[in-house]
């Protein structure tokens, strides 16, 4: 399978432009995550790839073949829906085996595959139950199993974990990733949760208002966000943004500093008042109000000797400033002045 290619894919619902000329290459065998705020078009794009909606203009190539005229059934893709969309009147076994039954595979093969997949997902004790008698997590796994059974060209996941509680979600993330790696099948995963994107993806595509803001590996996106939007969307707690004089000092309209790069240091040059402290044991996050008015978050070290109400000094770690121009696009790091000591702190 040579991957999925999108060229200028555009889709409108009525007057509303949902995806705007998307160009994207989904590499074969990789786990690609579409992430973005609600309404950014990521789910629509997934459905366009699945064939459940029509493309208004542009090209979609699945495994090198133009898929525009192919019905969803014929594209060889498998989808895991947000609501699972299990067949409520069929047992788990029948749900899993439906695709093979539809393809008229021999009964023995269907039984074998079904049991294999059930094994893989720890569903064997539930094979004869109906979806109504399963828990959320179990239904989730049946939905995944249904996709697995078909040995598709690619998996399409539409926010499959959003209906689960936090602990189950964390567990399932790992399981899904592990399965995908084991099978080596291309996967496209849609989520609005940036943490999910970061932990699962080989490649992240950040969407906003129907366009691709940035595409790259998690570390690329984290370390070199292409725009203020991406910088603020990825990473929790959110990146700190400062404007005004401090930004101008760095030659930018806005600068961004991640909380872990903002240290409370008496030798720092930024003054801020401590507003609140989130103590998590291994970590603590200090919420501060800068003199210039912005709220900042600094990742603090365990030994804290200040309280809410105190004024402290903040220091930005060297080389940790992200600069953004007037269009909120990232500016490249400034070339060091000849002879300057690059280890000297940025002020």
């Amino acid at each position: 399978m040579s991957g999925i290619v999108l060229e200028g894919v555009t889709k409108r619902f009525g007057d509303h432009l949902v995806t705007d000329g998307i160009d994207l290459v989904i590499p074969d065998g990789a786990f690609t995550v579409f992430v973005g705020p609600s309404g950014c078009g990521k789910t629509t794009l997934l459905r366009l790839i699945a064939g459940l909606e029509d493309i208004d203009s542009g090209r979609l190539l699945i495994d090198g073949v133009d898929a525009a005229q192919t019905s969803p059934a014929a594209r060889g893709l498998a989808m895991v829906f947000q609501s699972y969309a299990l067949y409520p009147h069929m047992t788990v076994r029948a749900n899993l085996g439906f695709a093979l039954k539809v393809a008229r595979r021999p009964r023995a093969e269907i039984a074998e595959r079904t049991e294999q997949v059930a094994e893989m997902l720890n569903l064997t004790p539930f094979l004869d139950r109906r979806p109504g008698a399963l828990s959320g997590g179990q239904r989730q796994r049946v939905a995944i199993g249904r996709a697995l059974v078909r040995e598709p060209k690619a998996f399409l996941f539409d926010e499959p974990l959003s209906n689960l509680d936090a602990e189950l979600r964390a567990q399932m993330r790992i399981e899904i990733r592990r399965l995908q790696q084991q099978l080596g099948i291309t996967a496209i995963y849609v989520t609005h949760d940036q943490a999910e994107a970061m932990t699962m993806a080989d490649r992240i595509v950040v969407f906003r208002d129907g366009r691709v803001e940035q595409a790259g590996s998690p570390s690329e996106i984290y370390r070199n966000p292409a725009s203020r939007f991406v910088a603020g969307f990825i990473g929790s707690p959110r990146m700190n943004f400062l404007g005004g004089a401090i930004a101008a000092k760095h030659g930018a309209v806005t600068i961004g500093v991640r909380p872990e790069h903002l240290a409370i240091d008496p030798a720092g040059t930024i003054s801020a008042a401590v507003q609140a402290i989130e103590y998590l044991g291994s970590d603590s996050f200090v919420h501060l109000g800068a003199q210039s008015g912005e709220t900042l978050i600094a990742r603090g070290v365990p030994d804290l000797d200040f309280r809410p109400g105190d004024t402290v000094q903040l220091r930005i770690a060297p080389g940790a400033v992200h600069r953004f121009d007037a269009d909120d696009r990232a500016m490249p790091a400034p070339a060091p002045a000849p002879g300057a000591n690059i280890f000297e702190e940025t002020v």
Partner: protein
Amino acid sequence: MTAGAAIRQRSYLQGPGRLLLAPAILLLLAASIAPLLVTIKFSLSDYRLLFPDSSGFVGLSNYARLVASPDFVPALVNTLMLIAIVLAASIAGGLGLALLLDGSVIGRGGLRLLVISPFFVMPPVSALLWKNLLMQPVSGFFAWLAALFGLPAYDWFSHAPLLSIALIVAWQWLPFAALILLTSLQSFDRELREAAQLDGASPAAILRHLLLPHLARPIAIIVMIETIFLIGVFAEILVTTGGGTASTDLAFLVYSQAMLQYDIGAASAAGLVAVVFANILAIFLIRAVGRSLEA
């Protein structure tokens, strides 16, 4: 995401969509529209089965003859009266019954079974039962009731054929009205009613100012549905009076012109009048009912 969310064109569904809809549409076209067009054509032609050589376009002369014939106006009037009586009786009776059922406690299920029964009885059976077992002036049940009160037995079908038929049809439709009104009553916010009671409103006032406006919509629907069916009352007339000026309605007029006098042209004209009538009546009645109840 439910299906009716938005009209989204999906190419892989368009073909099947049209294909699957087509047979139903074709059957309806063939059984309703096509014959209707033919009826229009016949109504404008001189077509009598006893004189097969006469034919050809005669314009509106069938209509003129129809209107002038001594049977037409009575049939029209009878149709109107039939509809009016049945609507009034079934809705008033249905409302009363619905109020009683709503307020009662014991054996609601059994009550519903009793009340719904007339609706499922086929019209020929209803008509014959009423004519013979109940209304028959010699040994019918009503005759016996009259005797209990010292009154002479009433010969229903001789003296008031249309009323008798209307009574039978109203009996059949009362359950329908009652059930719809009952459902609507039960959906009426209880608290609103209680608040009004606390405010000192009498039951009659509550009925008039609160319930009736709420019931305006279901009543309008009952009027619409019943009118559609009442225009075509046929079987009851056939098996009781067999026609006759006093009890013929438009539907029976069409039948007798076609099947008894073999005048296709005239019958078609009458049929079309019935069709137009049906539509006008339905629209007019709904508007009138809606307005008067919400006032």
